[in-house]
C-alpha cells in the first residue's frame, strides 16, 4: 500500500529507483511555474486579428434582421460575419467505425450557415478586428432581430414528456434483472427516494481558446483539446480540406474535464474567421461565452428505491433517471450505469429517459454518469442503513458482489473491501457515534459519511514511436493530451522503466498532430491506452537491440531470448545475472547504429483507418471480457453550523483502487482534484438556467461557486497499489473515480450531523434552516 503524501520527491529515476511507482515531479513543472508554458491563446503571430462572438438571446427561432453597420464602423474592425455573408461550413459527419471523428461535434448546428437559432447563446455573428478591445466592443454593437418560435426550456416541466433512452454500444438504456418492483413491494425494509442534481459547467480555468492560421488550404490551430486526432479530422471535414494539411497544437491545456472533448462554436468560428479575413485569428472565449457555447453537464432527476432483508441483504434495486439533451445534440448521460455494477442483488431495474430541450447540448463532464449517479445510489444505500440500524459500511460490505450483478462477468480486480478497511482506520470511523446529531463541537454539528467510488475502466489504441539513441536517450512520440492529468510525466516514467534508463533520459513529445495519433484524453483511458502501445514499442526496441547484440560473438547477450534479458542501467542485462549485459551505447556503437526506432500502430495512411478500427475494437473487447473499474471508498466529515446551516467539509479520506500507481504524487493530485470538484458539486455549483427563457443567468466565476481554497480541507488520499492483471502494467486510470461518491459522502455526513436527508444538490444552507 502506498500513502500519498506531500513530501518532496526523491530525485526521479536515480539508479536503483524503479521509475514506475516513484513520486517523480511533474516534467512540465518548470514551464508551468515560470510562465514559459504557452497555452493556445498565447502563440504570437505578427498579423494576428482577434474575434468575438455575438450570442443569440432567444432560445429558438430565426434571425430576421441583423444590423452590423455600427459594429463594422468601429475602428479596427476587419469583418462582421453573419449567416448572410459567412463562408459556409460543410455539415458535420456522423461517426462511423472507420471515422469516429464526427463524435467530437458538439452539435450538428451549422454556425452562421442558416438563420436558425437553436439555443440561447448560439453565436449568430462573429466580429474580427485588429485588437481584442475593438472586437469585443463591436460585438456589443451588432443588433439582431428575431422571430421567436415556441421553445421548450424548462427541464422540470418536461419530466413527464421524457422519452426512453435507446442506450449506446457501451450501455443499454434499460437493464432488467428479476422483478425489482415486486421485490421492492415485498421487501422487509425499503427506501424510495427522489434526487435532483442541477446542471453543472466544467469551468476549466483556461477558457476555450483557438488561434487559427491558414496557409492556402493548410490550417494550423492552437487549441486546448482532449482529442487532437478527431479535432483535426473534424476541422478537415468541416472546411473541406485534406486532414494531412490540418495541424493541431495542444501542448498545454488549461484544464479540460470533458469540456474540451468536443468541438464547439469557438473553434470552428475562429478558423472560419481566419479564412474569411486571410489573417491569423485568435478567439479566446469570454467566461460568459464558455457558458453559452460549450455544453455542460445535464441536470438530472433520479429515483432510487432499495429493498432489503433485515440483515441488510439487498433484494431490490430500482434506479431510474431522467436527464436532458439539447434538441440539437448531446448524448444521454449514463446516470444509472453504476447501479448495474455496484451491488449484488437478484432484482435490478435500471432505466434512463431523456427530455429534449431547446438548450445548448450537454456534453461529457468528469465521470459522466457516475458522478451524479453515485450521488443518488450511495445516498439511498446510506438511508437504507439508517432504516436498518446498521453501519453504512457494513451494508455495503454485505452486498459487495462477487461477479457483475447484471452481466455476471468476473471482475478483473475488485478491492472495495480493502478500500473501506483501510479508509475506516485512517479516518477513524470507529469514533463515529451512529446516532444522528449526536456529535457536537461547540456551535458545530459534526457528521461523518461514506460512499463508494466507482468508474469503469476502458482502453483504446494509440500510435507511438520510440527512438533509442546510442547515447542512451529516449524519445517517445505520441499525440496524447496533457491537461494537468500528468500524462507526460507518467509516460516518461513508463518508457524509462521499459528501457531501463533514468527518467531524465526520456523525452516525451505529445500534444500535437505532428506526433503519431494518441487516444482521447478522457474517460480515464489515456494512461493505460498509451502505456499499452508504448510498452509494445519499447519491447520492439529491446528486441531489435538484443538482435543487434546477438550478432556479435563478444556480446554476453548472444544467444539470449527476449525473455532472458531485462532492461536496466541503460542497457540490456541477463535476468538474475548482474553485470552480464551491455549498455545501449556499447551495443549500438558496435553495430554502427546511431539509434533504434520502433513504431506501433502507425505506418501507411491506411494504418490510420485500421488504427481507428483497432482502437474501437480494443475498447469493445475490453468490455466483453471482465468487469473492470477503478473503485474507492470516500470518507467525509462535515460540520454544520447549528445557527445558520452552513456546511463545511473539515476532513476527508479517500482510499482508491486504481491498479498500479505509476506516480503516487501525481495520481494523488488527480484523485484530490476529483474530490475537490465533487465538493463543488455537493455544496456550491449550479448553472442557473432561467426556466422562462432557457438563458444561463450566472455565466460567471463570481456567481457559479466552484470551491475556493477555504472550502477544501487537507485531503488524505491513499491508493491500494495493486495491479489490475488485465491492464497494461496493471494501470486502471485515476482521472474520474475521485469525483464519484463525493456528493453522496457529503450528503450522508450531513444526514449524520443533522438527521436530515438532503436529496437535492447543491446542498445549501437554506435546506438546513
Amino acid at each position, binding site marked *: 500500500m502506498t500513502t500519498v503524501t*506531500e513530501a*518532496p*520527491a526523491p530525485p526521479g529515476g536515480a539508479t536503483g529507483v524503479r521509475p514506475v511507482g516513484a513520486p517523480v*515531479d*511533474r516534467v*512540465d*513543472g*518548470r*514551464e*508551468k*511555474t*515560470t*510562465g*514559459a*508554458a504557452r*497555452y493556445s*491563446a*498565447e502563440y*504570437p503571430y505578427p498579423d494576428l486579428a482577434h474575434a468575438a462572438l455575438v450570442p443569440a438571446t432567444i432560445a429558438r427561432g430565426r434571425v430576421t434582421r441583423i444590423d452590423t453597420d455600427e459594429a463594422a464602423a468601429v475602428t479596427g474592425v476587419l469583418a462582421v460575419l453573419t449567416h448572410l455573408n459567412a463562408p459556409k461550413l460543410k455539415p458535420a459527419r456522423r461517426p462511423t467505425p472507420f471515422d469516429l471523428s464526427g463524435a467530437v461535434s458538439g452539435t450538428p448546428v451549422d454556425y452562421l450557415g442558416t438563420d436558425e437559432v437553436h439555443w440561447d447563446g448560439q453565436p449568430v455573428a462573429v466580429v474580427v478586428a485588429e*485588437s*481584442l*478591445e475593438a472586437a469585443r*466592443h463591436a460585438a456589443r454593437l451588432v443588433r439582431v432581430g428575431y422571430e421567436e418560435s415556441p421553445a421548450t426550456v424548462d427541464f422540470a416541466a418536461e419530466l413527464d414528456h421524457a422519452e426512453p433512452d435507446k442506450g449506446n454500444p457501451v450501455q443499454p438504456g434499460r437493464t432488467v434483472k428479476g422483478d425489482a418492483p415486486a421485490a421492492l413491494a415485498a421487501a422487509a425494509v425499503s427506501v424510495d427516494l427522489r434526487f435532483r442534481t442541477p446542471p453543472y459547467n*466544467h*469551468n*476549466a*480555468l*483556461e*477558457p476555450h481558446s483557438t488561434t487559427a492560421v491558414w496557409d492556402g488550404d493548410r490550417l494550423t490551430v492552437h487549441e486546448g483539446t482532449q482529442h487532437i486526432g478527431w479535432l483535426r479530422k473534424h476541422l478537415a471535414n468541416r472546411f473541406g480540406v485534406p486532414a494531412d494539411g490540418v495541424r493541431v497544437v495542444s501542448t*498545454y*491545456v*488549461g*484544464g*479540460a*474535464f470533458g469540456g474540451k472533448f468536443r468541438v464547439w462554436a469557438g473553434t470552428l468560428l475562429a478558423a472560419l474567421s481566419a479564412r474569411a479575413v486571410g489573417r491569423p485569428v485568435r478567439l479566446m472565449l*469570454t*467566461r460568459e461565452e464558455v457558458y453559452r457555447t460549450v455544453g455542460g453537464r445535464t441536470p438530472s432527476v433520479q429515483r432510487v428505491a432499495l429493498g432489503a432483508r433485515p440483515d441488510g441483504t439487498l433484494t431490490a434495486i430500482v434506479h431510474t433517471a431522467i436527464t436532458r439533451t439539447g434538441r440539437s445534440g448531446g448524448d444521454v448521460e449514463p446516470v444509472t450505469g453504476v447501479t448495474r455494477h455496484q451491488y449484488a442483488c437478484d432484482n435490478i431495474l435500471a432505466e434512463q429517459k431523456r427530455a429534449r430541450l431547446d438548450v445548448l447540448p450537454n456534453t461529457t463532464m468528469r465521470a459522466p454518469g457516475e458522478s451524479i449517479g453515485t450521488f443518488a445510489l450511495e445516498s439511498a444505500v446510506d438511508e437504507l442503513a439508517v432504516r436498518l440500524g446498521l453501519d453504512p459500511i457494513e451494508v455495503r460490505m454485505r452486498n459487495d458482489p462477487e461477479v457483475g450483478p447484471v452481466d455476471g462477468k468476473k471482475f478483473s480486480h475488485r478491492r472495495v473491501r480493502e478500500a473501506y478497511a483501510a479508509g475506516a482506520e485512517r479516518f477513524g470511523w470507529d469514533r463515529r457515534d451512529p446516532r444522528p446529531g449526536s456529535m457536537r463541537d461547540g456551535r458545530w454539528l459534526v457528521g461523518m459519511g461514506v460512499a463508494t467510488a466507482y468508474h469503469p475502466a476502458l482502453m483504446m489504441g494509440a500510435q507511438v514511436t520510440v527512438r533509442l539513441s546510442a547515447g542512451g536517450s529516449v524519445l517517445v512520440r505520441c499525440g496524447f493530451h496533457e*491537461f*494537468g*492529468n*500528468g500524462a507526460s510525466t507518467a509516460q516518461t516514467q513508463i518508457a524509462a522503466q521499459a528501457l531501463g534508463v533514468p527518467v531524465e533520459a526520456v523525452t516525451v513529445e505529445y500534444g500535437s498532430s505532428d506526433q503519431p495519433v494518441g487516444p482521447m484524453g478522457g474517460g480515464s483511458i489515456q494512461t493505460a491506452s498509451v502505456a499499452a502501445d508504448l510498452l509494445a514499442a519499447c519491447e520492439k526496441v529491446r528486441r531489435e537491440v538484443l538482435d543487434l547484440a546477438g550478432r556479435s560473438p563478444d556480446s554476453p547477450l548472444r544467444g539470449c531470448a527476449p525473455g532472458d534479458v531485462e532492461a536496466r542501467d541503460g542497457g540490456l542485462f541477463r535476468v538474475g545475472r548482474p553485470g552480464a549485459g551491455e549498455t545501449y551505447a556499447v551495443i549500438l556503437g558496435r553495430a554502427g547504429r546511431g539509434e533504434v526506432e520502433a513504431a506501433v500502430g502507425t505506418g501507411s495512411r491506411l494504418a490510420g483507418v485500421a488504427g481507428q478500427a483497432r482502437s474501437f475494437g480494443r475498447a469493445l473487447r475490453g468490455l466483453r471480457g471482465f468487469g473492470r473499474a477503478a473503485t474507492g471508498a470516500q470518507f467525509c466529515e462535515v460540520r454544520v453550523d447549528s445557527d445558520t446551516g452552513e456546511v463545511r467539509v473539515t476532513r476527508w479520506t479517500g482510499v482508491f483502487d486504481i491498479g498500479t500507481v505509476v506516480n503516487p504524487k*501525481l495520481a494523488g*493530485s*488527480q484523485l*484530490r*482534484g476529483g*474530490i*475537490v*470538484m465533487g465538493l463543488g458539486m455537493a455544496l456550491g455549483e449550479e448553472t442557473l438556467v432561467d426556466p422562462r427563457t432557457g438563458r444561463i443567468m450566472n455565466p*460567471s*466565476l*463570481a456567481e457559479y461557486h*466552484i*470551491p*475556493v*481554497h*477555504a472550502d*477544501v480541507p*487537507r*485531503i488524505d488520499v491513499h491508493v491500494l497499489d495493486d495491479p489490475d492483471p488485465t491492464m497494461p502494467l496493471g494501470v486502471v486510470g485515476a482521472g474520474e473515480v475521485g469525483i464519484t461518491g463525493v456528493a453522496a459522502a457529503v450528503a450522508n455526513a450531513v444526514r449524520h450531523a443533522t438527521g436530515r436527508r438532503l436529496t437535492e444538490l447543491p446542498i445549501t444552507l437554506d435546506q438546513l434552516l
Partner: protein
Amino acid sequence: MAEVRIRVNGATATLDIEPQVSLLDALREHLGLTGAKKGCAQGACGACTVLADGERIVSCLALAVQYEGREITTVEGLADGERLHPLQKAFIAHDGLQCGYCTPGQLCSAIGMLAEHRAGAPSAVTEQPPGLPEAPSGPPPVLSEAEIRERMSGNLCRCGAYNGIVAAIQEVAATDAEMTR
C-alpha cells in the same frame, strides 16, 4: 491612443494603447508576457494576479493607464535567471499544480500574501479578541493552514491542486519565518 509607461519585472515598458486596455491584456497582448492568465476577466478567479509595487492585484480589472509609473511583477519576474524562486520550487515539489493555468496567479498571490502577513495584516480567520484596548502589536499571526487557505481564497484552482499549494506555501513561509527571526 496614449503612451503609457509602466515598469514590468524591472524594465520600463512603453506602450501605445487605448485606455480600455486592461493591465492583463497589456501584458499578454502587447508585451508578450503571457504568464499572467485570463480565467474570467471578471475579477473572480485570480489567474491574472500580478504584483503592483509588491501588492497583489487582479490585472484583469486594472486599466493599464491607471498603473502608469507603477512597478509590476509577473510570474516571469520571479525566478532569478535559471534559479527558481523558492516558492516555484516548492510548488513543483508539492505538486501544487496540475494544468498550470492558475499557477502563475497562485505564485504571485502567495508572494504578495507572505509580504502582507509579514507586515502583520490580519485575515478573516485571524482570531482577534474584541475589546482590544490598544492597537494590536507584536509578531504577525502564525500562518496556519486555515490562514493560508483564507488568504489564498482569491485564487481559484479548478484542477483542485489546493492541498499542494498550501503545503508549498507553508514550507516557504516556515523558512521565511526562520529568516526573519
